[in-house]
C-alpha cells in the first residue's frame, strides 16, 4: 500500500520552473519525445480498466457546458494543445512546444501568440489533425449560438491566422497569462465533422465523439456505463489497456461496496468517503492512496452581513475553530491543515503564512476588545447587531453536518450563535450561493482554473455577482490591493514574478479572512493491485487525466 503525503511536496520550485520553461523547448527540438516507448510498438493494448464514478458523464462534446465528471472522458478521448503535469508544469500535447516569451511564441507585450503543432496526429477517423482544427475550435467556443462551457480567456482571442497546417497565430485583446493554462482544458474538436452541422448543440458528434486521444468512443449504456477502446494510432504514450470503462454508481456506499467486491478497478477522485478510509486500507488486493485535491473546505462568510463586516469577528471565529479535532475526529484524519486557498501542490503556494491556533480565550478577548458584549441571553451584540448567523451546507453530507454541530457548540462558548440551515446541493449552489443569499456556508471550493494561480473569479471586487459582477466572488470580498495584484498577476507571464504577486495575495487574504479555511481537500483513491501507471494530478479535475499510461502488471 502506498500513502502519498499531502503535506510535503517532493520537488523544488526551481524544478517546477525548469520544467515549465524547458518542457516546451525540449519538445520543440524533438516533437516525438513524449512518443511511445520502444516496447509499446510491439505490445498491443490488453485488459480492461473499470473506473467508478459517482456522477454520470453525459456531455461528450468537450467544449459544451459540462461538469467535473465529464472531464474523465474528455481527457481520454481528446487532446488539448498543452497538458498540465502533476507538478503543475505545462507540457506540449498537440502543440510541438509551449509558447513562451523566451522562445518567441508569445510577444513581449503578451498580445501576439504563435503555436506550432505536431505533424503526426490523426483524428480517430483517420483524417489528419491540422491548424485549421485549432482555429475552428477556438472560434466555435465564442460562437454565440453554441452552448459553450466557459468563454473566459477565449473571448480575448482575435485574428486567428493559419500559417501552415502545423502553425497558427492569433492576437489577444489584452495580455492574459492564465490563457496558457486555460488551453490545457480546451480540447480540440474536428473541423471536418463539425463544420457540416447546422446546430452545433445537437450534432451527432455529441453522442459519439471523434477525438485524437488515446481512446476511441465505443458505446454508452445510458445511466450505467460507457466504454472506450484503445486507439492504436495514438501519437503519444500508450494506451496499454484495450478497454476503458467509466461505470456510474450514484451511491457512494454502493460504490465502495463494488470496489470491495472487485467490480470496479479504480475509484476516481473523492469517491471513497473518509469514514471508509481505515477499512479500505486493509482490503486485500487493493491499493488505497491519499491524494491532494485542489479545493479547500472552508466556511464562507457573506461579508455584506453586518456581523461579518468587523474583521475582529472573523478573527475570533477563526481562533474558535478546533480544526485539528475536526480533521481527526470527524474526517478520520483525512484532510490537511491549510491557511490559504492555493493548493499545496501549486508552485504558487505560500508556505509562510501565520498558522491558526485554536484558542477560545483568545477568541473571547478579540471580541471583548472589539466591543462585542454578551447580552442577557449570552449572545454577544454590538451596535444593535447580534452575533448570530445561519450556516448552510449541502444536506445529506453527514460529515459536514457533524462539523456544523461541532462548530455550533464551540462558537456558543464564545458567545456566538450559529444556527444550521441546510439545503440540497441542487438548491444550495443556485442563486442562494451564486447571488450571496447565505449568511455563512460550508463548501469545498476551488479557486484556480486549470491550476493557474489567477483567482480573479473568486476574489476580485469585479467578480461579485450579487453586485452585478462577472465572477463567483460569493463572499463579496473586496480589497483594492488584492484587485490590483490580481490584475497585475493576470498580465505577468514570468512564473517567478507571478509567484511573488500571488504570495502577497495569499498574505492579504490570510489577514482579511474573507473565508475561514477548515482543511485542504484530500481524496481517498482506491485501485486494484496490479494497475500500474496511475498517477494523481491535483492540477486537473479528474484522476483519469492520463488513462493512456495505465497498464495491468503482467
Amino acid at each position, binding site marked *: 500500500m502506498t500513502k502519498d503525503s499531502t503535506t510535503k511536496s517532493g520537488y523544488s520550485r526551481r524544478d517546477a520552473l525548469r520544467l515549465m520553461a524547458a518542457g516546451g523547448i525540449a519538445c520543440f527540438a524533438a516533437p516525438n519525445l513524449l512518443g511511445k516507448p520502444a516496447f509499446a510498438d510491439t505490445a498491443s493494448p490488453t485488459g480492461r480498466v473499470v473506473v467508478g464514478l459517482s456522477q454520470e458523464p453525459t456531455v461528450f462534446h468537450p467544449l459544451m457546458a459540462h461538469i467535473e465528471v465529464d472531464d474523465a472522458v474528455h481527457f481520454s478521448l481528446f487532446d488539448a494543445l498543452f497538458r498540465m503535469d502533476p507538478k503543475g508544469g505545462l507540457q506540449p500535447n498537440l502543440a510541438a512546444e509551449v509558447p513562451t516569451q523566451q522562445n518567441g511564441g508569445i510577444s513581449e507585450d503578451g498580445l501576439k501568440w504563435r503555436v506550432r503543432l505536431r505533424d503526426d496526429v490523426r483524428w480517430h477517423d483517420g483524417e489528419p489533425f491540422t491548424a485549421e482544427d485549432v482555429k475552428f475550435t477556438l472560434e466555435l467556443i465564442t460562437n454565440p449560438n453554441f452552448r459553450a*462551457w466557459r468563454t473566459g480567456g477565449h473571448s480575448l482571442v482575435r485574428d486567428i491566422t493559419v500559417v501552415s497546417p502545423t502553425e497558427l497565430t492569433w492576437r489577444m485583446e489584452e495580455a492574459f497569462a492564465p490563457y496558457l493554462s486555460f488551453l490545457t482544458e480546451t480540447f480540440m474538436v474536428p473541423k471536418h465533422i463539425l463544420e457540416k452541422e447546422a446546430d452545433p448543440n445537437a450534432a451527432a458528434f455529441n453522442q459519439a465523439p471523434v477525438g485524437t486521444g488515446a481512446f476511441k468512443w465505443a458505446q454508452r449504456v445510458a445511466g450505467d456505463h460507457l466504454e472506450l477502446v484503445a486507439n492504436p494510432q495514438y501519437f503519444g504514450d500508450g494506451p496499454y489497456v484495450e478497454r476503458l470503462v467509466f461505470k456510474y454508481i450514484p451511491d457512494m456506499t454502493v460504490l465502495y461496496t463494488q470496489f470491495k467486491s472487485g467490480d470496479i478497478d479504480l475509484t476516481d477522485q473523492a469517491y471513497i468517503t473518509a469514514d471508509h478510509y481505515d477499512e479500505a486500507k486493509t482490503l486485500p488486493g487493493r491499493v488505497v492512496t491519499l491524494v491532494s485535491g485542489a479545493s479547500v473546505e472552508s466556511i464562507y462568510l457573506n461579508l455584506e452581513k453586518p456581523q461579518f463586516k468587523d474583521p475582529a469577528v472573523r478573527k475570533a471565529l477563526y481562533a474558535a475553530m478546533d480544526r485539528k479535532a475536526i480533521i481527526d475526529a470527524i474526517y478520520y484524519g483525512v484532510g490537511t491543515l491549510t491557511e490559504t486557498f492555493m493548493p499545496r501542490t501549486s508552485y504558487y503556494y505560500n508556505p509562510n503564512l501565520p498558522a491558526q491556533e485554536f484558542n477560545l480565550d483568545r477568541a473571547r478577548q478579540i471580541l471583548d476588545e472589539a466591543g462585542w458584549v454578551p447580552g442577557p441571553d449570552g449572545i454577544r451584540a454590538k451596535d444593535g447587531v447580534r452575533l448570530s448567523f445561519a450556516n448552510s451546507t449541502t444536506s445529506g453530507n453527514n460529515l459536514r453536518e457533524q462539523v456544523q454541530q461541532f462548530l455550533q457548540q464551540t462558537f456558543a462558548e464564545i458567545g456566538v450563535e450559529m444556527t444550521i440551515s441546510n439545503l440540497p446541493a441542487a438548491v444550495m449552489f443556485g442563486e442562494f450561493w451564486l447571488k450571496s443569499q447565505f449568511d455563512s456556508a460550508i463548501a469545498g471550493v476551488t479557486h484556480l482554473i486549470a491550476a493557474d494561480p489567477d483567482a480573479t473569479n473568486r476574489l476580485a471586487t469585479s467578480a461579485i455577482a450579487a453586485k452585478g459582477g462577472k*465572477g463567483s466572488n460569493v463572499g463579496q470580498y473586496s480589497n483594492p490591493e488584492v484587485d490590483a495584484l490580481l490584475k497585475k498577476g493576470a498580465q505577468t507571464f514570468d512564473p517567478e514574478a507571478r509567484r511573488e504577486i500571488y504570495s502577497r495575495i495569499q498574505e492579504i487574504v490570510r489577514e482579511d479572512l474573507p473565508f475561514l479555511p477548515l482543511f485542504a481537500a484530500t481524496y481517498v483513491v482506491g485501485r486494484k493491485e496490479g494497475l500500474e501507471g496511475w498517477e494523481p494530478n491535483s492540477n486537473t479535475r479528474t484522476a483519469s487525466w492520463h488513462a493512456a499510461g495505465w497498464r495491468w502488471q503482467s
Partner: protein
Amino acid sequence: MRGFLLNRLSQSLVLLLIVSVIGFVVLNLIPGGPLAQFGLDPSMTQDDLNRLKEQLGLNRPLWMQYLDWAWRLVQGDWGHSFRDGAPVLDVIGRHLVATLLLMGSSTVIAIAIGTWIGIRGATHRYSVFDYLATVGAMVALSIPTFWFGLVGIYVFSLRLGWLPAGNMYTIGDGSVLNHIHHLIMPSIVLALVHVAIWSRYMRTATLDVISQEFVKTARAKGLSERRILMKHVVGNALLPMITLAGMQLPSVLTGALVTETVFTWPGMGRLFLDSLGYSDYPVVMGLLMFSAILVVLCNLIADIVVAIIDPRIRLS
C-alpha cells in the same frame, strides 16, 4: 361503451393538463435550477451563466416556457435533456428496458407468491401459516427496501459470494444467464413489498368470496373444496386484483427509485432522481407526463377488463 370511452378520455385530458401545469410550475419554483451544477466551478463566470440561461430559454416568462413546451409536446416533441442534449423520449427509452426487466420479474414473483399466500391464508384462516404470513407481510411493509437490499448484498455478495453486488450485467459479459444472475437479488428484494401487498389484498378478497351464497351453494351441491376454490373462489377473488394491478402497473414502468440506486440498476427510478438532482426540467417533465399517461391508461384498461369479465358492471 363508446360514450364511456369518450367521457373517460376527455376527463383524462383535463387531468393531464392539470398535472402538467402543476408539475411545470412547481418544478420551476424550486430554487436552484439547472445551472446550479456550475455553482462551484470557478471557471463559470456570471456572463457564461447568463448566456447559458438564454440559450436554454430559461430567461423567458414561465407561462411562455410552459406554452412552448406544451405545444411541442402535443406535436410529439418532448424536448431535449439539458444534461446530454438527447431527445427526452430517447432518454426515457434508454432506461425503460432496464426498468421493464427488473420490475417485470419482480411483479411476476410478487403476483405468483402473493396470490398463493393470500388464498392459502384465507382458506386456512387463523392457522400457523396465516399468522406467519400476516407477520411476514407487516415486516416486509415496515422495513425499507434499501435495508433488505443492503443486507442482501452483505450476505449473498460479500459474505457468501453467490450473487453479484449490483449492476445489470458484468461489463464484457452480456449473456442472458449473466443478466438473470444479476436480476435475482434486486427483483426478490423489490418483490418483497409487493408480495406483502398482494397477499393481504388477496386474502381479504378470497375471504369475501368464500362467504358468498354461491360458494355455500357449491358446497351444498357436494363439490370438492379444491374444485370450489379453483372454479368459484379464485376467479371471483381475482376481480378486484385487476384494479389493483391497474393501479400498480404504472409504478412497474416508472421504476423503483431506491432499489435501483442500491443495486446500480440503470432504470427509470434512478433517471428520475438524477434528473431532479440536476434540475433537468425537460426530462423530469417527460417522466411526469409519461407516468401520468400510464396511470390514466392503466386505470382505463383495468376498468374495461373488469367490466368485460364481470357482467354485473355496465360501462354505459
